[in-house]
């Protein structure tokens, strides 16, 4: 298996990108050697790499999935430690973009590397044929460009360029490792400038900037249209450039201008506006600098968001535009935006028509494959849809017609698509339009299983407005949520109950999984507000009981249930994980019991499961209090694990729960886990624990009083924490007695209901629903 061939990785260059690549290799579980030059007169000859590792520990968002992974990265320098590359299986170069320096380095590496070890460059501007020019043949066979996107932990795209003499095993070794261990969506690219994502993405950004300047459009309006209405992140263009750094753009644009053929449409929009030059010169390089297109003005103590006026170059208070074009798009989709006749609609058309047409014109120059182009833009720029998917959404024929009416050239591929679409569903299989005019099945890497593919052309086994139940093969059912933000409501719980009845009728187990950006943001707390308004508290209590009983039944069902979260798994979503017989978590899972933020305690068995987990943990000190204290800390501070690895520290995941790095392999991993557990499955036994009761309550009350006094807890935090303390203490029990799960669930429910009625809790719920942020009262 190729994956096992890469056990140790060398990274040369400990700048921002090199260090972050090293961190992500460590996330992937391999040992890393990180080398950089020896600065003149340095006392510590490894100072650059060593301080880069120290910086990694402080980077936000974290580059490392667990702080301890920093120990997998060994710092060194290029003068003393080249020999450390000798046992590396893959050596990534991420040094300054200078051909002579890179080639010199490759020769040095070639002298020490083991036969077959891969050398790759993270270059974004230099073509592969120039990097390998004049290098020995055996080196070229193992040489690739591996182009990571920043930040490498979070951006899923990896572009790989392989030269004509590259060995297929070399490519496959890196591809498989990047896919399975680094979680990357690997897109094979041709050796053309900017590869795929930057070729299109830089054109798009530049087009959006210069067009906004020409049309004198406020940047908030530009970001409002070239954003969510088109399935593009809400940072749009200008806020995205602030994030990337304005000073990076001249280099990237310059290198594009230098390397693209003269007939490329890029040249028509290439310019370096004086305004941007001045911004950079004055230190307005974006978020890392004093600000960029937007800035936060802290004069006068407050924080005022300001936007740059593109014509005057002055900042003014930023406004939230209300646009008819955006409203139209919300109702009728992106075509309504591009066809809209107000200035923002005309702007959107001007930018996106040229960008999409440019993308269409680049096939087959940059890739023979439409899905590869779409995937590169989805994973490299976080677009919901790639350019061809977007064209399908607005209608290729309509688009071609509009281009023509606009006097723009219609790319031949778009013409060839005619009245059809770029993607077609053929008997439940997704196919894509090829340059040969025929449709070809969209290939997935071996082992990838997507619910989206299963759903295509299949009918759910059961379903309702919030959830569906799918047969994912081999006797495994999959419960999918599709409510708003995947919040958990009674419909989801009903379907889960139904699934628990259906599985024994011919299935082997159940997976709970979905392909939303978040597994679940928690229970739908809107119900609490309704209950408060009409004083229908029985409704809220019924819902708590329903959740408790459903999760209990899921845990003790006579077949395995595996929960497979990705993204946020909060509150009730986290409690579902806690009750699963097994969890297969995506590495990027952010889970936590955050109920105190809305003034209540976990009510669906979360308190109970944490107590039992800590009681059984071998990592805790002895005695009856540590499980109580640990659970209290975790829940009262609403601790959220920032990765699946961190979730193991907090016991949201058990040591035996699995972690899948590639999002697209999560369902397959979960299914495999169900099938493995199904062999001779016996449900867990009901267990009791001993809790100290009132003595524990007094200890926690003391701690809460201290936090109130020193200002670390807000007044209502005190009320909620003391409620939580009552649940975790075991209530009126004594350390000589045992407590059952049922008793703790009853306590949870009664404390939950008491807190839910508290006006300050209701204020928290209402504020959360309105703003998405916790109220500090």
């Amino acid at each position: 298996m190729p994956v096992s061939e890469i056990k140790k990785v060398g990274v040369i260059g400990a700048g921002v990108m090199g260090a972050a690549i090293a961190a992500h290799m460590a996330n992937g579980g391999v040992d890393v050697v990180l080398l950089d030059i020896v600065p003149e007169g340095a006392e510590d000859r490894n100072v650059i790499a060593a301080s880069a590792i120290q910086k990694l520990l402080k980077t936000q968002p974290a580059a490392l999935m667990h702080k301890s992974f920093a120990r997998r990265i060994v710092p060194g320098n290029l003068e003393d430690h080249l020999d450390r590359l000798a046992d590396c299986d893959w050596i990534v170069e991420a040094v300054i973009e200078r051909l002579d320096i890179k080639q010199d380095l490759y020769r040095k590496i070639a002298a020490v590397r083991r036969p077959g070890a891969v050398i790759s460059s993270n270059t974004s501007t230099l073509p592969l044929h120039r990097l390998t020019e004049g290098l020995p043949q055996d080196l070229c066979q193992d040489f690739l460009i591996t182009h990571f996107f920043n930040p490498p932990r979070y951006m899923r795209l990896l572009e790989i360029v392989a030269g004509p003499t590259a060995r297929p095993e070399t490519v496959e070794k890196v591809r498989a490792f990047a896919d399975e261990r680094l979680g990357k969506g690997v897109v094979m690219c041709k050796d053309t400038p900017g590869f795929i994502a930057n070729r299109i993405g830089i054109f798009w950004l530049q087009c959006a900037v210069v067009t906004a300047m020409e049309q004198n459009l406020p940047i908030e309006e530009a970001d409002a249209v070239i954003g969510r209405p088109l399935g593009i992140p809400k940072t749009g263009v200008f806020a995205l450039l602030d994030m990337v750094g304005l000073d990076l753009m001249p280099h990237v644009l310059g290198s594009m201008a230098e390397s693209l053929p003269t007939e490329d449409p890029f040249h028509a929009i290439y310019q370096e506006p004086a305004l941007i030059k001045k911004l950079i010169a004055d230190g307005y390089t974006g978020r890392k600098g004093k600000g960029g297109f937007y800035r936060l003005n802290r004069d006068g103590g407050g924080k005022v968001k300001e936007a740059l006026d593109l014509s005057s170059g002055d900042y003014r208070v930023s406004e939230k535009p209300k646009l008819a074009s955006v409203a139209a798009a919300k109702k009728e989709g992106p075509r309504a935006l591009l066809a809209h006749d107000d200035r923002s609609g005309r702007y959107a058309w001007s930018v996106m028509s040229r960008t999409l047409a440019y993308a269409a014109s680049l096939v087959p120059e940059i890739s023979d494959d439409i899905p590869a182009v779409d995937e590169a833009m989805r994973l490299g720029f976080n677009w919901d849809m790639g350019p061809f998917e977007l064209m399908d959404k607005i209608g290729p024929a309509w688009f071609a017609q509009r281009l023509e009416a606009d006097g723009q050239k219609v790319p031949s591929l778009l013409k060839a698509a005619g009245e059809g679409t770029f993607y077609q569903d053929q008997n439940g299989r997704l196919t894509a339009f090829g340059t040969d005019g025929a449709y070809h099945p969209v290939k997935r890497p071996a082992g990838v299983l997507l619910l989206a593919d299963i759903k295509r052309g299949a009918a759910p086994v059961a379903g309702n407005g919030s959830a569906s139940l799918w047969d994912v093969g081999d006797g495994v059912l999959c419960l999918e949520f599709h409510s708003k933000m995947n919040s958990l409501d009674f419909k989801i719980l009903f379907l889960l109950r139904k699934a628990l009845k259906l599985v024994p009728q011919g299935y082997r187990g159940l997976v709970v999984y979905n392909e939303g950006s978040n597994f679940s943001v928690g229970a739908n707390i809107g119900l609490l507000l309704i209950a408060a308004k009409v004083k229908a508290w029985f409704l809220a209590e019924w819902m708590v009981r329903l959740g408790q009983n459903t999760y209990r039944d899921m845990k003790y069902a006579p077949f395995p249930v595996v929960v497979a979260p990705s993204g946020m798994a909060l509150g009730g979503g986290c409690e579902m994980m806690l009750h699963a017989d097994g969890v297969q978590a995506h590495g990027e899972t952010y889970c936590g019991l955050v109920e105190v933020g809305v003034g209540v305690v976990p009510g669906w068995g979360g308190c109970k499961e944490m107590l039992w987990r800590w009681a059984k943990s071998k990592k805790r000190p002895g005695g009856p209090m540590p499980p109580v204290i640990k659970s209290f800390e975790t829940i009262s501070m609403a601790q959220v694990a920032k990765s699946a690895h961190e979730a193991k520290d907090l016991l949201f995941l058990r040591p035996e729960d699995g972690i899948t790095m590639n999002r697209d392999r999560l369902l397959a991993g979960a299914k495999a886990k169900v099938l493995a557990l199904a062999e001779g499955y016996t449900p867990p036994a009901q267990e009791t624990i001993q809790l100290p009761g009132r003595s524990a309550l007094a200890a926690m009350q003391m701690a809460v009083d201290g936090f109130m006094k020193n200002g670390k807890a807000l007044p209502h935090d005190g009320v909620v924490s003391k409620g939580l303390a009552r649940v975790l203490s075991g209530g009126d029990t004594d350390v000589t007695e045992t407590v059952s799960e049922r008793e703790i669930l009853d306590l949870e429910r009664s404390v939950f209901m008491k807190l839910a009625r508290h006006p300050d809790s209701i204020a928290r719920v209402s504020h959360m629903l309105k703003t998405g942020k916790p109220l500090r009262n």
Partner: protein
Amino acid sequence: MKNVVIAGYARSPFTFANKGEMTKVRPDDLAAQVVAGLIKKTGVPVGDLEDLILGCAFPEGEQGLNMARLVGFIAELPLSVAGTTVNRFCGSSMQAIHMAAGAIQMGAGEVFICAGVESMTRVPMMGFNPLPNPDLYERYPQAYMSMGETAENVARDCQITRAAQEAFAVESHAKASAAQSQGRLSDEIVAIKSNGGWVEQDGCIRAGTTAEGLAELKPAFDEQGTVTAGTSSPLTDGAAATLVCSEAYAEAKGLAPLARIKSIAVAGCKPEVMGLGPVAASNKALERAGLGGADIDIAELNEAFASQCLACLRDLDLKNAAINVDGGAIALGHPLGATGARITGKAAQLLAREKGRYALASQCIGGGQGIATVLEAVH
């Protein structure tokens, strides 16, 4: 009655809990290294030792069982030397000295090691299983009041301003760092093996501490209060030990006594102002010694918090005394169980070094108590 002397004093470096250099050292190992260091330094014939009395404020976990006996085994003391672990919170190892003094005067032994240890890294304050009596907590919550809160109470009741506390803390750091840089601390310190290396220096002292820097800290215990982390003693890992014997024994064996124990006392006070405990205890001990505050040349007053130390100094009439000459716990650190042995041993050492006549060592104790020892020069 037999005279009792302190005939030796040694301690480990004091380093920050949770982030210092001795976080990986077990407290029993730490204490054993200091005990061994003291034996080597004094040359006491170990076969003569009656007992190892070890103070510890949270004797559970790695500090649990009868740690003193285990430390005896680790330090390879003869099996004939007994061991007992005593707890009077921060006063634990001064209590150990008092117990030895009492035993010697009873004729129940000639020579004792009186030590103390606390790894505040490895056994947290309050221990792993805090289980307060819920009825007492309801009726009389100050029984369990946090130390920080009592320091605030003292600051408020005695009107000790934040600026005064900070000036006191700056002075403590200045004295300690001067003592450290002039090598005045090195002869009491036993190097400790930790993580394969040796720890030889105190780790909590911040040489450049300024009033301006301290003024920027937020109150640590009460949003509206005046006590900050900078005017409190830090959580610390450390151990200290003294050799306590009859004066006749010291003479017979050629040991070099540092000071004679003149009198001892403990006293209770309101738990909510436990920081004032040293006042009653010191006055009692002074009275028993037939002395007044003005007779004291050297005073070691534990700096649990600047507020309580200043309040005690205001009430005690120590007008001729040099106070905490080499710095106090705000700068050096306060490993709870070890501090009593440190300040008593230090007072004895200073009495010899500074050629004074009388010394006072005293400290406050959580729950509302004070403990005090009056020493007399032997030279």
